[in-house]
């Protein structure tokens, strides 16, 4: 975890409002755990004031290059989308705890389930799992064909199933529909996406064990401000975990979604 000025290597829009941003810097060498995130200042002024959390999507350790995918939504990500090659970005990272890689032995199967802008961290995970000889099945859900991205990239590391809410690509419906209609055999589930999706998974795939990556509005991103807490299943009412520093990845069932 350090603060460093990284330089923009490239930026392009790869789907509707979805940007792929590559940055370079020494700090990238620390980014070995998929599921971790970085916290970036998108402006030199205090508008916006807070940093923006973005997941690590891919890392090239040799060239110290970090790839991030983000959806241009509000003021912060709009400013981020204006960054050009050579621009410097104030980056804090890597933050939080990623997906445990040694939870699965060689030869086992991992089911990766991503929804929308929850897909990016699963890509680095997929690559790392495959490298360890683990079979990867990816189920990726998007709103529509125009919003889908990285299908080919995921296909390079395993089987891929796409769902879109409007049916314009892959199966019409949600990731849970894909999972219900195929009877995948897998050992662990890894998922990242909107909390409605994670809740649906918890309910509709109750037997699954594995890991969820959560999102919560953040202040500091490092565990100091208590903005991003969640209740713990079966804990005291005052028990909590912080998404930024205890997560964002938690064993399924550990926290109250």
């Amino acid at each position, binding site marked *: *975890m*350090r*603060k460093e000025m990284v330089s923009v290597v490239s930026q392009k829009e790869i789907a509707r409002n979805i940007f792929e941003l590559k940055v370079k810097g020494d700090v990238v060498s620390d980014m070995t755990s998929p599921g971790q995130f970085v916290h970036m*200042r998108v402006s030199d002024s*205090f*508008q*916006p*004031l*807070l*940093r923006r959390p973005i997941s690590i999507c891919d890392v090239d350790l040799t060239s110290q290059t970090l790839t991030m995918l983000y959806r241009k939504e509000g003021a912060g990500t709009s400013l981020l989308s204006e960054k050009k090659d050579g621009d410097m970005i*104030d980056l*804090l990272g890597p933050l939080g705890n990623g997906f445990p890689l040694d939870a699965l032995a060689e030869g086992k199967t991992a089911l990766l389930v991503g929804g929308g802008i929850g897909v990016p961290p699963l890509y680095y995970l997929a690559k790392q799992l495959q490298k360890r000889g683990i079979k990867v099945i990816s189920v990726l859900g998007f709103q529509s064909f125009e919003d889908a991205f990285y299908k080919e990239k995921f296909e390079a590391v395993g089987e891929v199933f796409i769902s879109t809410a409007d049916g314009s690509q892959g199966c019409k419906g949600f990731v849970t529909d894909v999972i219900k209609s195929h009877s995948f055999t897998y050992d662990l589930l890894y998922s990242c996406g909107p909390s409605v999706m994670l809740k649906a998974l918890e309910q509709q795939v109750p037997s699954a064990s594995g890991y969820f990556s959560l999102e*919560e*509005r*953040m*202040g*500091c*991103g*490092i*565990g*100091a*401000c*208590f*903005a*991003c*807490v*969640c*209740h713990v299943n079966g804990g*005291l*009412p*005052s*028990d*909590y975990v912080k998404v930024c*520093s205890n997560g964002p990845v938690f064993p399924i069932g550990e926290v109250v979604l």
Partner: protein
Amino acid sequence: MNRLAISLPGLDMKNPIMPASGCFGFGREYAGFYDLSVLGAAAIKAATAEARFGNPTPRVAETHSGMLNAIGLQNPGVDKIMEKELPFLKSYNIPIVANIAGSRDEDYCEVARKLSSHPQVSVLELNISCPNVKEGGIQFGTDPKTAAELTKKVKSVSSKPVYVKLSPNVSNISEMAKAVEEAGADGLSMINTLLGMRIDLKTRKPILANKTGGLSGPAIKPVAIRMIHEVSQAVSIPIIGMGGVTCAEDVIEFMLAGASAVAIGTANFVDPLICPDIISKLPELLDHMNVNHISELIGGSWKECEVPSLSR
């Protein structure tokens, strides 16, 4: 001579800079970024008698040059703080400002008694101004009588100096300040956050689950400066100033307004290295201003030349 050293009741600080309560946790996280022993002091997160989870999330929202928070005084309770959190800070050997909160007099007193007896605690900071807790806090912070009574009670059980943290959400801040000064406060901390709200156009509801939150950050700096300017002339106890500090120049502005030390809150989230950065920049700034010792600046905006400043 250390040009930055500031000595206040219970606080021997090698420089006037401390992280503000609630914006520094109990120091662990920032210890990963820098050596905490460079700090003038550190204010730790509010302690309550019992453990508190605080408010539901979302707890933060952004505003123009500011942020809203409604953490709701989440903390593990005073006992755990003394057992588990304070020892961690010991090795850094810096004065500790222990922020205390509660909803009833008795709670405040219990926490004050316990924390003031802890060897590592230098002073108490009586938080009578947390805008995010329904049952209490805020009425202590807006009524001079209630605030004075609470101050008296806490003083009577505390073996350490007591600083009272004032709320800016009042009609007459000097009245509040004078009331707690008379009640025995050894110093003031000001300002806490302004009450604010943001509404989400999509859901049509407040963004914060708690609806209202405390506004902090650069947006509130002018409010803090004017309150410190006013109060520092109305009382004779020292003021720890805060509210939107983001750079060494801001620190000087707060001291010219009348603050004797300066706390940094929200800016820690923007830049975890902000405290040591500011500390390292102060000497150069003093040179530039032809100031020998930083204490010469305290109240400099009103201490001398009152009349000439009016004439422009």
